[in-house]
């Protein structure tokens, strides 16, 4: 980006500065640490100059927003045209409770719904399964059948909102239910917009909500990708997720590399279904965390976009620029929230959200300050949403596209992120891909090591967490109001489910479940049969049990 002669001049001047000006300052005011590092372990220099990005080529590495390689953003006008989608994750109690929360969020100016399911639903069990005891409606909404889904979206026209569903193992079933609700509302399927997380691969080493072994898990993810490519053109069939990888303890580079590699695996597997890359790649979406190190995160988002564009173009020969788009959702990092002095979390979340916006995200969830303690209250959720609105409307950062481009530091860091991620990608290629790497415990070990290192750094005070290992308040009383899920939720939910089992056409349910068993054994795309099953009010647990029988259950590989 600079001519050679200028770089040489700058280099000479820098050397002079290092010999003359710098030593005097260091003598008066020594640097606070011997070394400064970011979370990924990269050494951060005291000063960046054009020398650090002298190999960069503007058109090759940055380009213009809305054009390859999309480093500067997917859209030419970015937030000048449209702000990011403020999408807050919500869900608790019964479908009625969450329906109320959805309506509240919509009335507060939220523009997209995001559904949290409870653990039994996530693991594919009905609310009345013995293993569900104590968990029904606690960490999300309980959905056991189409009946619950009808209540969840009651009075919410599905052609007017977009809905994100955080569901993986049973994603086929929940998407089938959503389609069925749309059918009932008379909304054409091509108008249904939203996202199913449906990223089963990361479950094996990050979120660990695995139901089936890796191969059938991948198959189910791809069933949705294929089905949507053919029938649900506005649906994002998958949200390839780094968030959980990061939360499990990975560094920013590991998050970036492992997520993109999962993306590669989904593309490869979907191509085997006879689709062309440009038939489905435009609808693939991504999900990242935004952690505390501000510039590291911004660099990560920018590198992610560029790297994905290059992978799609060079590795998969995509032609449609949209296939090269990395559309991303970002959530501020839950694991950075502290139980101590919880109001400090508002500040952390603000910094993280700002990084996501400066990194060019398409949508954003901001955590509430009380989430290290409990489910957020209405008030804390409002503050979190207002944080985004203040960034959007008051800070001025949304007024120009990719404002940090050209910063010597940010560009150098973006380049380093991409390089380091490529090294991992090469390594996983050499291992034979994602599934062999999972089976060897590669990701699990990498992440566990990083998590442990991070904790050691906190304990050795190499990493300061304000209010925890510095500026802690002795004997602090934590004044957070706790939102508790009423224990009657479980009872109500179980009663509703059992009533449904009595009044539905049980012969039809049996028939359609047998049909599903057959389709699974034949390795067909299961979406059409599952839609049929949910419409007959077969329950989530019943459908998943059929698949458990065919595929078997995953046994965790334990690595500490």
């Amino acid at each position, binding site marked *: 980006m600079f001519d050679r002669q200028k770089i040489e001049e700058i280099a000479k001047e820098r050397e002079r500065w290092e010999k003359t000006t710098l030593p005097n300052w260091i003598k008066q005011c020594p640097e606070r640490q011997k070394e400064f590092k970011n979370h990924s372990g990269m050494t951060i220099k005291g000063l960046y100059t054009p020398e650090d990005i002298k190999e960069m080529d503007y058109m090759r590495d940055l380009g213009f927003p809305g054009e390859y390689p999309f480093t500067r953003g997917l859209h030419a006008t970015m937030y000048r045209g449209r702000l990011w989608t403020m999408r807050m994750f919500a869900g608790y109690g019964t479908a009625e409770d969450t329906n109320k929360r959805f309506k509240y969020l919509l009335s507060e100016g939220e523009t997209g719904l995001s559904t949290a399911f409870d653990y039994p639903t996530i693991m594919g069990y009905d609310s009345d399964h013995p293993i569900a005891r*104590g968990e029904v409606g606690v960490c999300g909404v309980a959905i056991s059948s189409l009946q619950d889904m009808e209540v969840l979206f009651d009075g919410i026209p599905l052609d007017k909102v977009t809905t994100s569903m955080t569901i993986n193992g049973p994603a086929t079933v929940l998407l089938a239910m959503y389609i069925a609700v749309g059918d009932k509302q008379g909304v054409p399927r091509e108008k249904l917009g939203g996202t199913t997380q449906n990223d089963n691969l990361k479950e094996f080493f990050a979120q*660990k909500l695995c139901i089936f072994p890796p191969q059938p898990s991948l198959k189910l993810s791809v069933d949705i990708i294929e089905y949507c490519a053919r029938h649900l053109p506005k649906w994002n069939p998958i949200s390839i997720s780094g968030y959980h990888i990061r939360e499990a303890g990975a560094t920013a580079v590991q998050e970036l590399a492992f997520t993109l590699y999962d993306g590669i695996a989904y593309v490869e597997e979907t191509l085997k279904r006879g689709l062309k890359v440009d038939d489905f790649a435009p609808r693939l979406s991504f999900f990242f965390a935004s952690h505390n190190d501000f510039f590291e995160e911004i660099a990560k988002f920018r590198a992610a976009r560029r790297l994905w564009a290059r992978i799609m173009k060079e590795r998969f020969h995509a032609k449609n620029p949209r296939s090269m788009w990395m559309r991303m959702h970002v959530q501020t990092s839950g694991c950075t929230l502290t139980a101590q002095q919880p109001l400090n979390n508002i500040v952390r979340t603000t910094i993280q959200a700002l990084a996501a916006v400066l990194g060019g995200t398409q949508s954003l969830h901001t955590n509430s300050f009380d989430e290290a*303690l409990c489910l957020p209250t209405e008030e804390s959720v409002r503050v979190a949403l207002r944080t985004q609105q203040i960034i959007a409307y008051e800070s001025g950062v949304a007024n120009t596209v990719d404002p940090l481009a050209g910063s010597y530091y940010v560009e150098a860091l973006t380049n380093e992120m991409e390089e380091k991620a490529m090294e991992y990608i090469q390594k996983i290629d050499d291992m034979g891909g994602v599934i062999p790497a999972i089976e060897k415990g590669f990701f699990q070990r990498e992440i*566990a090591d990083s998590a*442990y290192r991070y904790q050691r750094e*906190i304990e050795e005070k190499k990493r300061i967490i304000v209010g925890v290992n510095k500026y802690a308040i002795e004997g602090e009383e*934590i004044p957070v109001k706790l939102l508790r*899920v009423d224990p009657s939720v479980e009872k109500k939910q179980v009663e509703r489910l059992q009533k449904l089992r009595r009044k539905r056409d049980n012969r039809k349910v049996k028939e359609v479940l047998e049909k599903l068993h057959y389709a699974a054994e034949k390795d067909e795309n299961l979406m059409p049969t599952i839609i049929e099953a949910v419409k007959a009010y077969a329950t989530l647990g019943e459908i998943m049990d059929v698949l458990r029988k065919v595929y078997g259950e995953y046994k965790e590989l334990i690595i500490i």
Partner: protein
Amino acid sequence: MQSERKIRVLIAKPGLDSHDRGAKVVARALRDAGMEVIYTGLRQTPEQIVETALQEDVDVIGLSILSGAHMALFPRIMELLKEKGLTDVLVFAGGIIPEEDIPELKKIGIKEVFGPGTSTETIIKYVLENAPKRR
């Protein structure tokens, strides 16, 4: 002469949640501190946990839960421990457990509850000082 037996600890995750970062970090820290640590993975039922405790002859059980189901699951675990005669086992817990639940948990025999932000050093010290003395 037989050397003194190492403290045996079971780190267990009851409930359906899969947040194992903390449990694993604690397991590793206790192991690095010289204890024998058994970690049995996610989603263990109270029955499985108590069975493992019995089979492995542990001195200490650390329960980690972040799903909010502690009030449903911990009492069951404590009950089963009593049934099996494992009353001298030191049981502590960690995760997202609201302050106001702690008195009730202590009443049923959970000796300590560690919240988010607790250092592994604190936990190691606690276990060393409180593990039942056996040979």
